[in-house]
């Protein structure tokens, strides 16, 4: 099982990622690049939290294989809303 030293290291790492996210938000990146960067960092943070804070790294692999693909699939399927969201803009009253 992980040690307190590892937990504190991960905690500091997560705070560092939050700091990087904040710097990026005020660095003048384009909206698309900023969104992609923030999402990537949030996914990295979530992965670290799942593996170490929620102990998926130390559980039988069958647990992660049962759970994670299901939620990833559900979230990927939600991406079909974007074409309709862009269509909404053209439906506004002039």
């Amino acid at each position: 099982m992980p040690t307190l030293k590892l937990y504190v290291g991960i905690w500091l790492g997560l705070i560092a990622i939050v700091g990087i996210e904040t710097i990026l938000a005020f660095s003048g990146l384009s909206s698309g690049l900023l969104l992609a960067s923030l999402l990537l960092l949030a996914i990295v943070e979530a992965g670290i939290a799942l593996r170490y804070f929620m102990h998926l790294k130390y559980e039988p692999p069958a647990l992660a294989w049962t759970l994670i693909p299901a939620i990833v699939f559900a979230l990927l399927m939600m991406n079909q809303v974007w074409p309709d969201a862009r269509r909404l803009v053209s439906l506004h009253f002039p």
Partner: protein
Amino acid sequence: MMLEPSPIGAVQTKKFVMWLFIIADAATFGAILFGYGYLRVGSLNWTRPFAFSPSIINALVMTVVLLTSSLTMLIAVSAAQKGKKSDAVRWLGATILLGVVFAALHLREWASLMGEGWSLSANPMGGSTLVGATFFGITGLHLLHVISGVIAIGVITVGFNRGRWDASYVETTGLYWHFVDLVWMFVFPLVYLLNAHA
């Protein structure tokens, strides 16, 4: 006594059930965040309400408080599993305190925004009213989870201290608390940072 075997090998049934809840709740938060993205992409007059000071600084403090509460929860679970009851109770108490601080900071921020005229259906900046609707909707759902978590940890702490429940209950409650933290890892950048203005 016959114990029902866990469907996932050596994983306790109650832990597995908590994981199933977490996955379902993750889909809920995923849907509400996708809904926010959908409305934002589809709005012509979206406004960004958050200045670095005080809004983003307040959200940063909230983030650090919540991350720290995950650390204290990990220490509590570790102490409970080693049979150090008083240490576990103390760290669970610290987790509850940090959860209360997070909720208090959040409610103070809400009060401040409402004082400026923000609500579910009003935008004092003159843009889309969906800004307030999505902000209060998403952060409200998360705050509800935080408050529920604080209550759950309080109940588990009392039960564990009295010897009614063992360390596995503390660990299962910890899973929920870390999930609340995990959700905030998406709420902070998507709802706060993407709505920040220079």
